């Protein structure tokens, strides 16, 4: 399984990468960690004529707090994000989800941006980005633009990126306050496999212990990670008891549009996504209550 031949360019700067992308047209691709792209190339399902290596562009990697946003460079390694004290403190949902991404070895090379741009319907990082309404910063020779995750993830394996665009960073809103908790649950066949269905939830409680704010999204059950607006609406303002959560989640199946593959059919993904959402909300509520009590 040797890749088809290609030309290689090591870009020293974002500008150089963008110029090479613009010049290369549809046959040029960026490569960072390569954990997804290289297997596709080995199977000759992807055959870029030019690979633009962006691994050495220091401005593309890094994690920093910018006001109420945690900014993660697109080429930040998943392992570095998982180990980052900033991520653990300000985006514990992302830290939790990252422990489910592939395996330690793939996380050492795979990047946050790579996973976002791959837009696998069951991938954990796009799911968290969708849940927290991350903002993606994109650049090309034509300039810079920003997209909300909901607009960035268009369809299975498809983002709004133009062929000449490069993802620069992902900006995650941080939830302040003492009663915030998150939940992340996924089902996979083996530990390091792609999720068959996954759910992420983040909850903030008010002084009375009711739900002030709630974001829930599921992955693996729609072409892109899906925010469950109706579920959030049903639970916001309420006490988040088990019955209410189960009730709200009963309607999830109708919101989903799961794909079937060799590992699970649509029915499975649909049913289990609902169960994961329920578990994620329960976990988030319990974590928020513990945080409030602390």
């Amino acid at each position, binding site marked *: *399984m*040797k*890749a*088809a*031949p*290609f*030309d*290689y360019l*090591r870009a020293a700067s974002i500008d150089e990468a963008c110029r090479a992308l613009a010049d290369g047209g549809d046959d040029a691709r960026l*490569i960072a960690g*390569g*954990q997804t792209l*290289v*297997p596709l*190339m*080995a*199977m000759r399902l992807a055959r870029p004529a030019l*690979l633009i*290596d962006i*691994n050495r562009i220091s401005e593309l990697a890094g994690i920093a707090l910018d006001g109420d946003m945690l900014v993660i460079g697109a080429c930040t390694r998943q*392992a570095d994000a998982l180990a980052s004290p900033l991520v653990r403190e300000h985006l514990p949902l992302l830290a939790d989800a990252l422990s489910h991404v*592939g*395996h*330690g*070895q*793939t996380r*050492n*090379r795979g990047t946050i941006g790579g996973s976002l741009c791959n837009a696998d319907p069951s991938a954990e990082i796009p799911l968290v980005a969708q849940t927290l309404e991350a903002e993606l910063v994109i650049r090309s020779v034509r300039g810079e633009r920003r997209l909300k995750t909901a607009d960035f993830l268009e369809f299975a394996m498809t983002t709004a990126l133009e062929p000449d665009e490069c993802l620069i960073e992902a900006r995650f809103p941080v939830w302040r306050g003492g009663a915030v908790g998150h939940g992340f649950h996924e089902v996979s066949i083996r*530990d*390091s496999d792609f999720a068959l269905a996954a759910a992420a939830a983040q909850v903030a409680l008010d002084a009375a212990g009711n739900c002030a704010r709630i974001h829930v999204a599921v992955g693996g059950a729609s072409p892109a990670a899906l925010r469950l607006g109706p579920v959030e609406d049903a639970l916001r303002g309420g006490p988040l008891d088990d019955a209410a959560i189960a009730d709200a989640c009963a309607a999830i199946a109708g919101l989903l549009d799961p794909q079937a593959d060799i590992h699970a059919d649509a029915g499975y993904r649909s049913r289990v996504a609902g169960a994961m959402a329920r578990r994620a909300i329960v976990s988030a509520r319990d974590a928020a209550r513990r945080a409030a009590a602390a």
Partner: protein
Amino acid sequence: MSEHRVTLTVNGNEMSGTAEARLTLVDFLRDVLGLTGTHIGCEHGVCGACSVIMDGKPVRACLTFAVIADGAAITTVEGLEGADGEMSPLQDAFCETHALQCGYCTPGMLIAAHALLAENPDPSSAQIRDAIGGNLCRCTGYVQIVEAIALAAEKLRGA
């Protein structure tokens, strides 16, 4: 199609060779540098037989093109033994518990274990299993491998 000069520091020694851009790190190590201890099992990043340490972290050498790894410090199984040719405590522990049979996945396992112990000198059984969870073995059923890594950890702590 382009050819590139790739220089790596492998097991402490600077080594160079020429590689097409599409040549993977594992093929470069094996076919250009002659280090056949690292093995190929799937070429799509699942089995872990090709694991090496790259700039201090365990990675799959089949998922890295050699040109992208250019300049990196690489440790392969050949670099685990002592300068005097003596087996490392980890390698010795694998022999003590018979943590292998056919030996094909073993270099990758050793790399994963080596990386674990460098970062966590007292891993629990669950942490060991997790660390080697990206390395497939079809011979052993993993139990004796886990025992070897625990034994090596104990020996390294005691030394």
